Protein backbone atom coordinates (compact mmCIF):
# COMPACT_ATOMS: atom_id res chain seq x y z
CA UNK A 1 0.00 0.00 0.00
CA UNK A 2 1.39 3.33 -1.10
CA UNK A 3 1.90 5.64 1.85
CA UNK A 4 -0.23 8.76 2.05
CA UNK A 5 0.38 11.35 4.73
CA UNK A 6 -0.90 14.80 5.39
CA UNK A 7 0.43 17.76 7.30
CA UNK A 8 -2.65 19.90 7.05
CA UNK A 9 -6.43 19.66 6.99
CA UNK A 10 -8.65 22.09 5.12
CA UNK A 11 -12.20 22.19 3.84
CA UNK A 12 -12.80 21.45 0.17
CA UNK A 13 -14.94 24.60 -0.07
CA UNK A 14 -11.80 26.63 0.63
CA UNK A 15 -10.22 24.83 -2.32
CA UNK A 16 -13.13 26.12 -4.38
CA UNK A 17 -12.57 29.66 -3.12
CA UNK A 18 -8.87 29.50 -4.01
CA UNK A 19 -9.63 28.00 -7.41
CA UNK A 20 -12.27 30.61 -8.18
CA UNK A 21 -9.82 33.42 -7.47
CA UNK A 22 -7.23 31.81 -9.74
CA UNK A 23 -9.80 31.18 -12.51
CA UNK A 24 -10.87 34.83 -12.22
CA UNK A 25 -7.28 35.97 -12.64
CA UNK A 26 -6.78 33.80 -15.69
CA UNK A 27 -10.01 34.71 -17.49
CA UNK A 28 -11.66 38.16 -17.26
CA UNK A 29 -14.98 36.64 -18.35
CA UNK A 30 -15.22 34.52 -15.19
CA UNK A 31 -17.96 35.96 -12.97
CA UNK A 32 -19.44 34.73 -9.69
CA UNK A 33 -22.96 34.69 -8.27
CA UNK A 34 -24.03 33.84 -4.75
CA UNK A 35 -27.36 33.40 -2.95
CA UNK A 36 -26.46 35.00 0.38
CA UNK A 37 -23.77 32.49 1.39
CA UNK A 38 -20.55 34.27 0.45
CA UNK A 39 -18.70 33.30 3.62
CA UNK A 40 -19.81 29.67 3.52
CA UNK A 41 -18.73 29.35 -0.11
CA UNK A 42 -15.37 31.08 0.51
CA UNK A 43 -15.97 33.58 -2.28
CA UNK A 44 -14.61 36.58 -0.35
CA UNK A 45 -11.21 36.68 -2.04
CA UNK A 46 -12.76 36.71 -5.51
CA UNK A 47 -15.19 39.45 -4.52
CA UNK A 48 -12.42 41.56 -3.02
CA UNK A 49 -10.32 41.37 -6.16
CA UNK A 50 -13.16 41.52 -8.72
CA UNK A 51 -16.09 43.36 -7.11
CA UNK A 52 -17.62 44.34 -10.45
CA UNK A 53 -17.65 40.68 -11.53
CA UNK A 54 -19.62 39.47 -8.52
CA UNK A 55 -23.44 39.32 -8.34
CA UNK A 56 -25.13 39.06 -4.95
CA UNK A 57 -28.50 37.50 -5.79
CA UNK A 58 -30.04 37.22 -2.33
CA UNK A 59 -31.88 34.11 -1.19
CA UNK A 60 -33.33 33.44 -4.62
CA UNK A 61 -31.63 30.40 -6.13
CA UNK A 62 -34.05 30.03 -9.04
CA UNK A 63 -33.35 33.58 -10.12
CA UNK A 64 -29.63 32.94 -9.70
CA UNK A 65 -29.68 29.99 -12.13
CA UNK A 66 -31.58 32.03 -14.72
CA UNK A 67 -29.28 35.04 -14.39
CA UNK A 68 -26.27 32.76 -14.73
CA UNK A 69 -27.74 31.30 -17.93
CA UNK A 70 -28.32 34.82 -19.26
CA UNK A 71 -24.80 35.94 -18.43
CA UNK A 72 -23.36 33.19 -20.63
CA UNK A 73 -25.13 34.70 -23.63
CA UNK A 74 -22.88 37.75 -23.30
CA UNK A 75 -19.82 35.50 -23.14
CA UNK A 76 -19.43 35.31 -19.38
CA UNK A 77 -18.40 32.17 -17.50
CA UNK A 78 -20.62 32.25 -14.41
CA UNK A 79 -19.91 30.30 -11.22
CA UNK A 80 -22.98 30.02 -8.98
CA UNK A 81 -22.43 29.38 -5.30
CA UNK A 82 -24.77 28.02 -2.65
CA UNK A 83 -25.28 24.84 -0.61
CA UNK A 84 -25.62 21.62 -2.62
CA UNK A 85 -29.24 21.23 -1.59
CA UNK A 86 -30.18 24.65 -2.93
CA UNK A 87 -27.92 24.18 -5.97
CA UNK A 88 -29.84 21.15 -7.22
CA UNK A 89 -33.18 20.00 -5.83
CA UNK A 90 -34.49 23.49 -5.23
CA UNK A 91 -33.70 24.62 -8.77
CA UNK A 92 -33.78 21.42 -10.80
CA UNK A 93 -36.16 22.70 -13.44
CA UNK A 94 -34.26 25.96 -13.86
CA UNK A 95 -31.05 23.99 -14.37
CA UNK A 96 -32.76 21.54 -16.69
CA UNK A 97 -34.36 24.09 -19.03
CA UNK A 98 -32.27 27.25 -18.85
CA UNK A 99 -28.83 25.64 -18.39
CA UNK A 100 -28.61 21.98 -19.45
CA UNK A 101 -31.13 21.87 -22.31
CA UNK A 102 -30.00 25.33 -23.43
CA UNK A 103 -26.34 24.18 -23.24
CA UNK A 104 -25.23 27.19 -21.22
CA UNK A 105 -21.69 27.45 -19.88
CA UNK A 106 -22.68 27.69 -16.21
CA UNK A 107 -20.59 26.21 -13.38
CA UNK A 108 -22.92 25.16 -10.56
CA UNK A 109 -20.73 25.12 -7.46
CA UNK A 110 -22.24 23.34 -4.50
CA UNK A 111 -20.92 23.34 -0.97
CA UNK A 112 -22.04 21.55 2.22
CA UNK A 113 -22.94 18.41 0.27
CA UNK A 114 -23.86 15.22 2.06
CA UNK A 115 -23.88 14.14 5.70
CA UNK A 116 -20.69 16.04 6.60
CA UNK A 117 -22.69 19.25 6.66
CA UNK A 118 -23.36 17.94 10.16
CA UNK A 119 -25.45 19.58 12.83
CA UNK A 120 -27.89 21.43 10.52
CA UNK A 121 -29.51 18.09 9.80
CA UNK A 122 -31.34 16.43 6.95
CA UNK A 123 -33.06 19.54 5.58
CA UNK A 124 -29.64 20.64 4.35
CA UNK A 125 -27.81 17.31 3.92
CA UNK A 126 -28.56 16.48 0.33
CA UNK A 127 -27.71 12.90 -0.63
CA UNK A 128 -29.45 12.82 -4.00
CA UNK A 129 -27.64 15.58 -5.89
CA UNK A 130 -25.17 13.48 -7.87
CA UNK A 131 -28.02 11.38 -9.22
CA UNK A 132 -30.15 14.36 -10.17
CA UNK A 133 -27.31 16.12 -11.90
CA UNK A 134 -25.82 13.16 -13.73
CA UNK A 135 -29.21 12.41 -15.29
CA UNK A 136 -29.17 15.72 -17.14
CA UNK A 137 -27.85 15.26 -20.70
CA UNK A 138 -24.64 17.20 -21.27
CA UNK A 139 -23.98 17.89 -17.60
CA UNK A 140 -20.47 17.23 -16.28
CA UNK A 141 -20.49 16.11 -12.63
CA UNK A 142 -17.40 16.42 -10.43
CA UNK A 143 -16.92 15.59 -6.75
CA UNK A 144 -13.32 16.26 -5.67
CA UNK A 145 -11.72 14.78 -2.54
CA UNK A 146 -9.53 17.41 -0.86
CA UNK A 147 -8.50 21.07 -0.91
CA UNK A 148 -5.90 20.74 -3.65
CA UNK A 149 -8.06 18.64 -5.94
CA UNK A 150 -11.03 20.98 -5.49
CA UNK A 151 -8.89 24.00 -6.34
CA UNK A 152 -7.53 22.28 -9.44
CA UNK A 153 -11.02 21.15 -10.47
CA UNK A 154 -12.38 24.67 -10.13
CA UNK A 155 -9.67 26.01 -12.44
CA UNK A 156 -10.26 23.15 -14.88
CA UNK A 157 -14.04 23.65 -15.15
CA UNK A 158 -13.51 27.32 -15.98
CA UNK A 159 -11.60 26.22 -19.05
CA UNK A 160 -14.16 23.56 -20.01
CA UNK A 161 -17.07 24.70 -22.21
CA UNK A 162 -20.43 23.41 -21.01
CA UNK A 163 -22.53 23.08 -17.87
CA UNK A 164 -20.77 21.60 -14.84
CA UNK A 165 -21.91 20.52 -11.38
CA UNK A 166 -19.00 20.84 -8.93
CA UNK A 167 -19.72 19.36 -5.49
CA UNK A 168 -17.69 19.92 -2.35
CA UNK A 169 -18.09 20.01 1.42
CA UNK A 170 -17.98 21.81 4.71
CA UNK A 171 -15.62 20.02 7.14
CA UNK A 172 -11.85 20.16 7.24
CA UNK A 173 -10.33 16.99 5.80
CA UNK A 174 -6.74 15.86 5.14
CA UNK A 175 -4.91 17.33 2.16
CA UNK A 176 -3.22 14.37 0.49
CA UNK A 177 -3.26 15.15 -3.25
CA UNK A 178 -0.45 17.22 -4.82
CA UNK A 179 -0.40 20.99 -4.73
CA UNK A 180 -0.84 22.60 -8.17
CA UNK A 181 -1.88 19.29 -9.73
CA UNK A 182 -3.27 19.09 -13.22
CA UNK A 183 -6.94 18.18 -13.12
CA UNK A 184 -8.23 16.33 -16.16
CA UNK A 185 -12.02 16.14 -16.29
CA UNK A 186 -13.16 12.55 -16.76
CA UNK A 187 -9.78 10.99 -15.98
CA UNK A 188 -9.71 8.81 -12.87
CA UNK A 189 -6.75 9.08 -10.48
CA UNK A 190 -4.92 5.92 -9.45
CA UNK A 191 -4.43 6.23 -5.70
CA UNK A 192 -2.98 2.76 -5.14
CA UNK A 193 -2.42 -0.14 -7.47
CA UNK A 194 -3.56 -3.50 -6.13
CA UNK A 195 -4.66 -6.94 -7.24
CA UNK A 196 -7.44 -8.21 -4.95
CA UNK A 197 -10.27 -5.69 -5.06
CA UNK A 198 -11.06 -2.39 -6.80
CA UNK A 199 -12.24 0.40 -4.52
CA UNK A 200 -13.75 3.25 -6.50
CA UNK A 201 -14.17 6.25 -4.21
CA UNK A 202 -15.24 9.85 -4.62
CA UNK A 203 -15.24 13.01 -2.49
CA UNK A 204 -14.63 12.65 1.23
CA UNK A 205 -14.67 8.86 0.92
CA UNK A 206 -11.31 8.79 -0.87
CA UNK A 207 -9.37 9.44 2.34
CA UNK A 208 -11.49 6.80 4.11
CA UNK A 209 -10.61 4.39 1.29
CA UNK A 210 -6.92 5.07 1.88
CA UNK A 211 -7.34 4.35 5.60
CA UNK A 212 -9.25 1.19 4.70
CA UNK A 213 -6.50 0.19 2.26
CA UNK A 214 -3.91 0.39 5.04
CA UNK A 215 -6.02 -1.84 7.30
CA UNK A 216 -6.64 -4.26 4.45
CA UNK A 217 -2.89 -4.43 3.73
CA UNK A 218 -2.31 -5.54 7.31
CA UNK A 219 -4.89 -8.27 6.68
CA UNK A 220 -3.01 -9.35 3.56
CA UNK A 221 -5.50 -7.87 1.11
CA UNK A 222 -4.01 -5.87 -1.75
CA UNK A 223 -6.60 -3.20 -2.60
CA UNK A 224 -6.55 -1.12 -5.73
CA UNK A 225 -7.91 2.34 -4.90
CA UNK A 226 -9.09 4.61 -7.67
CA UNK A 227 -10.41 8.11 -7.17
CA UNK A 228 -13.37 8.78 -9.44
CA UNK A 229 -13.54 12.56 -9.09
CA UNK A 230 -15.59 12.91 -12.27
CA UNK A 231 -18.85 11.01 -11.92
CA UNK A 232 -19.85 12.06 -15.43
CA UNK A 233 -18.33 11.50 -17.92
CA UNK A 234 -17.16 8.36 -16.15
CA UNK A 235 -13.69 6.98 -16.88
CA UNK A 236 -15.03 3.66 -18.15
CA UNK A 237 -11.61 2.55 -19.38
CA UNK A 238 -10.08 2.93 -15.92
CA UNK A 239 -12.94 1.00 -14.33
CA UNK A 240 -12.77 -1.91 -16.74
CA UNK A 241 -8.98 -2.10 -16.66
CA UNK A 242 -9.00 -2.34 -12.90
CA UNK A 243 -11.83 -4.86 -12.74
CA UNK A 244 -10.13 -7.08 -15.32
CA UNK A 245 -7.38 -7.53 -12.75
CA UNK A 246 -9.25 -7.60 -9.41
CA UNK A 247 -12.61 -9.22 -10.36
CA UNK A 248 -14.57 -7.46 -7.57
CA UNK A 249 -15.59 -3.94 -6.69
CA UNK A 250 -16.44 -1.70 -3.75
CA UNK A 251 -17.80 1.78 -4.46
CA UNK A 252 -17.68 4.48 -1.79
CA UNK A 253 -19.52 7.80 -1.82
CA UNK A 254 -21.25 10.29 0.47
CA UNK A 255 -24.57 9.90 -1.34
CA UNK A 256 -27.68 7.80 -1.48
CA UNK A 257 -26.88 4.32 -2.81
CA UNK A 258 -29.57 5.03 -5.42
CA UNK A 259 -28.35 7.08 -8.33
CA UNK A 260 -24.80 7.89 -7.31
CA UNK A 261 -21.30 6.71 -8.22
CA UNK A 262 -22.12 3.10 -7.29
CA UNK A 263 -24.94 2.93 -9.81
CA UNK A 264 -22.77 4.48 -12.52
CA UNK A 265 -20.10 1.83 -11.92
CA UNK A 266 -22.70 -0.95 -11.74
CA UNK A 267 -24.04 0.05 -15.14
CA UNK A 268 -20.56 -0.20 -16.65
CA UNK A 269 -20.01 -3.59 -15.04
CA UNK A 270 -23.33 -5.12 -16.02
CA UNK A 271 -22.87 -4.08 -19.63
CA UNK A 272 -19.22 -5.07 -19.97
CA UNK A 273 -17.84 -7.31 -17.27
CA UNK A 274 -20.26 -8.37 -14.52
CA UNK A 275 -18.36 -8.92 -11.27
CA UNK A 276 -19.54 -8.70 -7.64
CA UNK A 277 -19.96 -5.16 -6.30
CA UNK A 278 -20.71 -3.80 -2.83
CA UNK A 279 -21.88 -0.27 -2.11
CA UNK A 280 -20.60 1.97 0.66
CA UNK A 281 -23.29 4.65 0.55
CA UNK A 282 -26.30 5.89 2.48
CA UNK A 283 -28.96 3.20 2.39
CA UNK A 284 -31.86 5.17 0.90
CA UNK A 285 -32.49 7.34 3.94
CA UNK A 286 -32.29 10.94 5.04
CA UNK A 287 -29.56 12.08 7.41
CA UNK A 288 -29.89 13.76 10.81
CA UNK A 289 -28.07 16.16 13.13
CA UNK A 290 -24.69 15.20 14.56
CA UNK A 291 -21.01 15.81 14.07
CA UNK A 292 -19.68 14.83 10.64
CA UNK A 293 -17.65 11.97 12.14
CA UNK A 294 -20.60 10.64 14.12
CA UNK A 295 -22.80 10.72 11.04
CA UNK A 296 -20.28 9.06 8.75
CA UNK A 297 -19.96 6.22 11.26
CA UNK A 298 -23.68 5.85 11.93
CA UNK A 299 -24.57 5.86 8.23
CA UNK A 300 -21.77 3.49 7.27
CA UNK A 301 -19.48 5.81 5.35
CA UNK A 302 -16.10 5.33 7.06
CA UNK A 303 -12.98 3.23 6.61
CA UNK A 304 -14.34 0.46 8.83
CA UNK A 305 -17.38 0.04 6.61
CA UNK A 306 -15.20 0.01 3.49
CA UNK A 307 -13.13 -2.81 5.05
CA UNK A 308 -16.30 -4.78 5.77
CA UNK A 309 -17.58 -4.22 2.24
CA UNK A 310 -14.26 -5.45 0.84
CA UNK A 311 -14.40 -8.59 2.95
CA UNK A 312 -17.92 -9.29 1.79
CA UNK A 313 -17.27 -8.69 -1.88
CA UNK A 314 -14.14 -10.85 -1.79
CA UNK A 315 -16.16 -13.70 -0.25
CA UNK A 316 -18.61 -13.33 -3.11
CA UNK A 317 -15.78 -13.29 -5.64
CA UNK A 318 -14.20 -16.38 -4.12
CA UNK A 319 -17.56 -18.18 -4.13
CA UNK A 320 -17.88 -17.46 -7.82
CA UNK A 321 -14.36 -18.75 -8.45
CA UNK A 322 -15.00 -21.88 -6.34
CA UNK A 323 -18.17 -22.62 -8.29
CA UNK A 324 -16.33 -22.59 -11.61
Amino acid sequence: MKKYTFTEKKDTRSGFGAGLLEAGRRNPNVVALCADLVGSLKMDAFIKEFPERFFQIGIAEANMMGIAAGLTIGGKVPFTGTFANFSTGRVYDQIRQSIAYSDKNVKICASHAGLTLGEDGATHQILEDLGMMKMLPGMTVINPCDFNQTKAATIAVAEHHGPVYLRFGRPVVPIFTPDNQEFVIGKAWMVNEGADVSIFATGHLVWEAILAGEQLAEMGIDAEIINIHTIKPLDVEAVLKSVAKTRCVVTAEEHNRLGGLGDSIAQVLVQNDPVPQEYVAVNDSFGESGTPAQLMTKYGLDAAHIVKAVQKVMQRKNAVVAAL
Partner: protein
Amino acid sequence: MSQQHTIDDLKGVAVQVRRDIVRMVHACQSGHPGGSLGCTDLLVALYFKVMEHNPQFKMDGTGEDLFFLSNGHISPVFYSVLARSGYFPVSELGSFRKLNSRLQGHPTTHEGLPGVRIASGSLGQGISVAIGAAQAKKLNGDDKKVFVLTGDGELDEGQIWEAAMYAPGKKVDNLVWIVDHNGQQIDGSTDQVMPLGNLRAKVEAFGWQVLEMNGNNMDEVVATLEQAKSLCGNGQPICILMKTGMGYGVDFMMGSHKWHGVAPNDEQLHQALEQLHSKLEDYQLNELIS
Protein backbone atom coordinates in the same frame (compact mmCIF):
# COMPACT_ATOMS: atom_id res chain seq x y z
CA MET B 1 -31.97 53.93 -35.09
CA SER B 2 -35.24 52.17 -35.80
CA GLN B 3 -36.04 50.24 -38.92
CA GLN B 4 -37.79 52.16 -41.71
CA HIS B 5 -41.19 50.53 -41.77
CA THR B 6 -44.45 52.47 -41.66
CA ILE B 7 -47.21 51.53 -39.27
CA ASP B 8 -49.20 50.27 -42.26
CA ASP B 9 -46.29 48.02 -43.22
CA LEU B 10 -46.27 46.60 -39.72
CA LYS B 11 -50.00 46.00 -39.76
CA GLY B 12 -49.61 44.12 -43.02
CA VAL B 13 -46.89 41.91 -41.60
CA ALA B 14 -49.03 41.26 -38.51
CA VAL B 15 -51.89 39.95 -40.64
CA GLN B 16 -49.54 37.58 -42.41
CA VAL B 17 -48.04 36.42 -39.12
CA ARG B 18 -51.55 35.68 -37.83
CA ARG B 19 -52.19 33.60 -40.97
CA ASP B 20 -48.95 31.72 -40.29
CA ILE B 21 -49.98 31.07 -36.68
CA VAL B 22 -53.33 29.49 -37.43
CA ARG B 23 -51.91 27.48 -40.34
CA MET B 24 -48.99 26.18 -38.29
CA VAL B 25 -51.20 25.13 -35.40
CA HIS B 26 -53.75 23.60 -37.75
CA ALA B 27 -51.14 21.64 -39.69
CA CYS B 28 -49.86 19.78 -36.66
CA GLN B 29 -53.17 19.90 -34.76
CA SER B 30 -51.43 21.15 -31.64
CA GLY B 31 -49.89 24.30 -30.23
CA HIS B 32 -51.10 27.55 -28.72
CA PRO B 33 -52.91 29.97 -31.02
CA GLY B 34 -54.60 32.22 -28.44
CA GLY B 35 -51.61 33.93 -26.85
CA SER B 36 -49.73 33.86 -30.17
CA LEU B 37 -52.44 35.90 -31.91
CA GLY B 38 -52.65 38.31 -28.96
CA CYS B 39 -48.90 39.02 -28.97
CA THR B 40 -48.50 39.27 -32.74
CA ASP B 41 -48.49 43.07 -32.89
CA LEU B 42 -45.86 43.27 -30.14
CA LEU B 43 -43.46 40.86 -31.80
CA VAL B 44 -43.92 42.44 -35.23
CA ALA B 45 -43.24 45.90 -33.76
CA LEU B 46 -40.13 44.66 -31.97
CA TYR B 47 -38.60 42.75 -34.86
CA PHE B 48 -39.65 45.01 -37.75
CA LYS B 49 -39.38 48.43 -36.12
CA VAL B 50 -38.09 48.89 -32.59
CA MET B 51 -35.20 46.50 -32.04
CA GLU B 52 -31.79 46.86 -33.58
CA HIS B 53 -30.94 43.28 -34.45
CA ASN B 54 -29.16 41.17 -37.00
CA PRO B 55 -30.89 38.19 -38.63
CA GLN B 56 -27.39 36.84 -39.35
CA PHE B 57 -27.75 35.23 -35.97
CA LYS B 58 -24.98 35.27 -33.39
CA MET B 59 -25.69 33.81 -29.96
CA ASP B 60 -23.85 36.58 -28.07
CA GLY B 61 -25.89 39.34 -29.72
CA THR B 62 -23.16 41.87 -29.09
CA GLY B 63 -24.24 45.33 -30.19
CA GLU B 64 -27.84 44.18 -30.73
CA ASP B 65 -31.08 44.54 -28.83
CA LEU B 66 -32.17 41.13 -27.55
CA PHE B 67 -35.60 39.58 -27.08
CA PHE B 68 -36.44 36.67 -24.77
CA LEU B 69 -39.74 34.81 -24.87
CA SER B 70 -40.47 33.53 -21.36
CA ASN B 71 -43.96 32.20 -22.16
CA GLY B 72 -42.52 29.78 -24.68
CA HIS B 73 -45.84 28.17 -25.54
CA ILE B 74 -46.57 31.06 -27.91
CA SER B 75 -43.80 29.72 -30.13
CA PRO B 76 -45.92 30.03 -33.33
CA VAL B 77 -45.78 33.84 -33.27
CA PHE B 78 -42.09 33.78 -32.33
CA TYR B 79 -41.20 31.42 -35.19
CA SER B 80 -43.28 33.27 -37.75
CA VAL B 81 -41.75 36.65 -36.84
CA LEU B 82 -38.21 35.24 -36.79
CA ALA B 83 -38.71 33.65 -40.21
CA ARG B 84 -40.35 36.68 -41.74
CA SER B 85 -37.61 38.97 -40.43
CA GLY B 86 -34.97 36.80 -42.04
CA TYR B 87 -33.57 34.46 -39.40
CA PHE B 88 -34.49 31.28 -41.30
CA PRO B 89 -36.50 30.35 -44.41
CA VAL B 90 -40.24 30.99 -44.18
CA SER B 91 -40.78 27.55 -45.72
CA GLU B 92 -39.47 26.00 -42.51
CA LEU B 93 -42.62 27.10 -40.68
CA GLY B 94 -44.26 24.01 -42.20
CA SER B 95 -42.13 21.81 -39.97
CA PHE B 96 -43.56 23.22 -36.73
CA ARG B 97 -43.88 20.52 -34.03
CA LYS B 98 -42.95 17.74 -36.42
CA LEU B 99 -40.31 15.06 -36.02
CA ASN B 100 -36.73 16.19 -36.78
CA SER B 101 -37.78 19.86 -36.86
CA ARG B 102 -35.85 22.84 -35.52
CA LEU B 103 -39.25 24.36 -34.67
CA GLN B 104 -39.90 22.41 -31.49
CA GLY B 105 -43.18 22.73 -29.63
CA HIS B 106 -41.52 25.20 -27.30
CA PRO B 107 -38.49 27.26 -28.38
CA THR B 108 -35.07 25.78 -27.78
CA THR B 109 -31.45 26.34 -28.69
CA HIS B 110 -30.99 22.58 -28.82
CA GLU B 111 -31.71 22.17 -32.53
CA GLY B 112 -29.81 25.34 -33.41
CA LEU B 113 -32.73 27.44 -34.65
CA PRO B 114 -31.38 30.94 -35.43
CA GLY B 115 -32.93 33.64 -33.26
CA VAL B 116 -33.47 31.54 -30.16
CA ARG B 117 -31.05 32.15 -27.27
CA ILE B 118 -32.65 30.11 -24.48
CA ALA B 119 -35.13 27.30 -24.08
CA SER B 120 -38.45 28.35 -22.60
CA GLY B 121 -41.76 26.73 -21.89
CA SER B 122 -41.46 25.80 -18.26
CA LEU B 123 -42.76 29.14 -17.05
CA GLY B 124 -41.26 31.86 -14.90
CA GLN B 125 -37.63 31.68 -16.01
CA GLY B 126 -37.32 34.28 -18.74
CA ILE B 127 -36.95 37.48 -16.74
CA SER B 128 -34.02 35.98 -14.84
CA VAL B 129 -32.32 35.01 -18.10
CA ALA B 130 -32.98 38.47 -19.54
CA ILE B 131 -31.47 40.06 -16.44
CA GLY B 132 -28.33 37.99 -16.89
CA ALA B 133 -28.07 38.97 -20.54
CA ALA B 134 -28.64 42.63 -19.62
CA GLN B 135 -25.98 42.55 -16.92
CA ALA B 136 -23.53 40.93 -19.33
CA LYS B 137 -24.18 43.83 -21.73
CA LYS B 138 -23.33 46.28 -18.97
CA LEU B 139 -20.10 44.43 -18.16
CA ASN B 140 -19.23 44.42 -21.86
CA GLY B 141 -19.91 48.13 -22.33
CA ASP B 142 -22.73 47.29 -24.76
CA ASP B 143 -25.45 49.96 -24.61
CA LYS B 144 -28.17 47.92 -26.36
CA LYS B 145 -31.38 46.84 -24.62
CA VAL B 146 -32.96 43.56 -23.55
CA PHE B 147 -36.68 42.86 -23.96
CA VAL B 148 -38.51 39.99 -22.29
CA LEU B 149 -42.12 38.90 -22.65
CA THR B 150 -44.05 36.95 -20.01
CA GLY B 151 -47.68 35.98 -19.79
CA ASP B 152 -49.89 37.18 -16.97
CA GLY B 153 -50.91 33.71 -15.82
CA GLU B 154 -47.15 33.11 -15.70
CA LEU B 155 -46.94 35.65 -12.89
CA ASP B 156 -48.24 32.91 -10.56
CA GLU B 157 -44.67 31.54 -10.63
CA GLY B 158 -42.52 32.55 -7.67
CA GLN B 159 -39.35 33.03 -9.71
CA ILE B 160 -41.03 35.95 -11.49
CA TRP B 161 -41.10 37.86 -8.23
CA GLU B 162 -37.52 36.94 -7.35
CA ALA B 163 -36.52 38.52 -10.65
CA ALA B 164 -38.96 41.41 -10.19
CA MET B 165 -37.25 42.26 -6.89
CA TYR B 166 -33.73 41.85 -8.25
CA ALA B 167 -33.88 43.99 -11.39
CA PRO B 168 -34.81 47.29 -9.71
CA GLY B 169 -32.74 46.48 -6.62
CA LYS B 170 -29.64 46.05 -8.77
CA LYS B 171 -30.53 48.88 -11.18
CA VAL B 172 -30.76 46.72 -14.28
CA ASP B 173 -31.97 49.68 -16.32
CA ASN B 174 -31.31 48.28 -19.81
CA LEU B 175 -34.20 45.86 -19.41
CA VAL B 176 -37.81 46.08 -20.64
CA TRP B 177 -40.25 43.49 -19.27
CA ILE B 178 -43.54 43.20 -21.15
CA VAL B 179 -46.49 41.41 -19.55
CA ASP B 180 -49.08 39.97 -21.93
CA HIS B 181 -52.02 40.98 -19.77
CA ASN B 182 -54.86 39.13 -21.50
CA GLY B 183 -56.51 38.06 -18.26
CA GLN B 184 -56.69 34.42 -19.33
CA GLN B 185 -54.89 31.25 -18.38
CA ILE B 186 -55.51 27.56 -19.01
CA ASP B 187 -58.15 26.89 -16.37
CA GLY B 188 -60.04 30.15 -16.80
CA SER B 189 -59.60 33.87 -16.24
CA THR B 190 -56.72 35.08 -14.09
CA ASP B 191 -59.30 36.37 -11.64
CA GLN B 192 -60.73 32.88 -11.27
CA VAL B 193 -57.46 30.97 -11.18
CA MET B 194 -55.16 33.31 -9.22
CA PRO B 195 -56.15 36.96 -8.91
CA LEU B 196 -53.35 39.33 -9.84
CA GLY B 197 -54.89 42.21 -7.89
CA ASN B 198 -53.55 45.65 -8.69
CA LEU B 199 -50.73 44.51 -10.92
CA ARG B 200 -49.49 48.01 -11.72
CA ALA B 201 -49.22 48.88 -8.03
CA LYS B 202 -47.44 45.61 -7.30
CA VAL B 203 -44.84 46.06 -10.03
CA GLU B 204 -44.33 49.72 -9.15
CA ALA B 205 -43.86 48.80 -5.50
CA PHE B 206 -41.06 46.47 -6.59
CA GLY B 207 -39.37 49.49 -8.18
CA TRP B 208 -40.13 49.29 -11.89
CA GLN B 209 -41.12 52.20 -14.12
CA VAL B 210 -44.48 51.01 -15.41
CA LEU B 211 -46.08 51.84 -18.75
CA GLU B 212 -49.36 50.55 -20.12
CA MET B 213 -50.48 49.97 -23.66
CA ASN B 214 -53.10 48.35 -25.82
CA GLY B 215 -51.06 45.54 -27.33
CA ASN B 216 -53.38 45.20 -30.30
CA ASN B 217 -53.05 48.80 -31.50
CA MET B 218 -49.91 49.02 -33.63
CA ASP B 219 -49.50 52.81 -33.30
CA GLU B 220 -49.66 52.53 -29.54
CA VAL B 221 -47.39 49.49 -29.39
CA VAL B 222 -44.63 51.18 -31.41
CA ALA B 223 -44.92 54.46 -29.51
CA THR B 224 -44.85 52.75 -26.10
CA LEU B 225 -41.89 50.52 -26.99
CA GLU B 226 -39.96 53.57 -28.24
CA GLN B 227 -40.84 55.37 -25.01
CA ALA B 228 -39.61 52.38 -22.99
CA LYS B 229 -36.31 52.43 -24.87
CA SER B 230 -35.90 56.13 -24.20
CA LEU B 231 -36.53 55.58 -20.48
CA CYS B 232 -33.66 53.07 -20.24
CA GLY B 233 -30.54 54.20 -18.42
CA ASN B 234 -32.37 56.02 -15.65
CA GLY B 235 -31.51 53.55 -12.90
CA GLN B 236 -34.76 51.62 -13.11
CA PRO B 237 -35.94 48.74 -15.31
CA ILE B 238 -39.12 49.29 -17.33
CA CYS B 239 -42.26 47.17 -17.27
CA ILE B 240 -45.01 47.46 -19.88
CA LEU B 241 -48.40 46.09 -18.91
CA MET B 242 -49.77 45.17 -22.30
CA LYS B 243 -53.52 44.65 -22.60
CA THR B 244 -54.23 42.14 -25.34
CA GLY B 245 -57.09 39.99 -26.45
CA MET B 246 -56.26 36.31 -26.41
CA GLY B 247 -56.91 35.14 -29.96
CA TYR B 248 -56.95 38.70 -31.33
CA GLY B 249 -57.68 38.88 -35.05
CA VAL B 250 -59.85 35.76 -35.29
CA ASP B 251 -63.30 36.57 -33.96
CA PHE B 252 -64.29 33.16 -32.65
CA MET B 253 -60.97 32.74 -30.80
CA MET B 254 -60.99 36.15 -29.12
CA GLY B 255 -61.20 36.74 -25.40
CA SER B 256 -61.54 33.14 -24.31
CA HIS B 257 -59.13 30.85 -22.50
CA LYS B 258 -60.60 27.99 -24.54
CA TRP B 259 -58.22 28.79 -27.41
CA HIS B 260 -55.12 28.82 -25.20
CA GLY B 261 -53.89 25.48 -26.45
CA VAL B 262 -56.38 24.13 -28.98
CA ALA B 263 -55.88 23.79 -32.73
CA PRO B 264 -58.58 24.76 -35.22
CA ASN B 265 -60.17 22.07 -37.38
CA ASP B 266 -60.33 22.43 -41.18
CA GLU B 267 -63.51 24.49 -41.13
CA GLN B 268 -62.29 26.75 -38.34
CA LEU B 269 -59.02 27.30 -40.19
CA HIS B 270 -60.97 28.33 -43.25
CA GLN B 271 -63.08 30.74 -41.20
CA ALA B 272 -59.99 32.21 -39.58
CA LEU B 273 -58.12 32.76 -42.85
CA GLU B 274 -61.16 34.49 -44.34
CA GLN B 275 -60.75 37.14 -41.64
CA LEU B 276 -57.03 37.63 -42.32
CA HIS B 277 -56.44 39.14 -45.74
CA SER B 278 -52.73 39.49 -46.42
CA LYS B 279 -50.83 41.01 -49.31
CA LEU B 280 -47.83 38.86 -48.44
CA GLU B 281 -47.45 35.22 -49.35
CA ASP B 282 -48.27 32.20 -47.23
CA TYR B 283 -45.53 29.68 -46.64
CA GLN B 284 -45.98 26.42 -48.54
CA LEU B 285 -47.18 23.29 -46.85
CA ASN B 286 -46.80 19.78 -48.16
CA GLU B 287 -50.18 18.91 -46.74
CA LEU B 288 -53.25 20.19 -48.55
CA ILE B 289 -54.90 23.13 -46.85
CA SER B 290 -58.56 23.42 -47.73
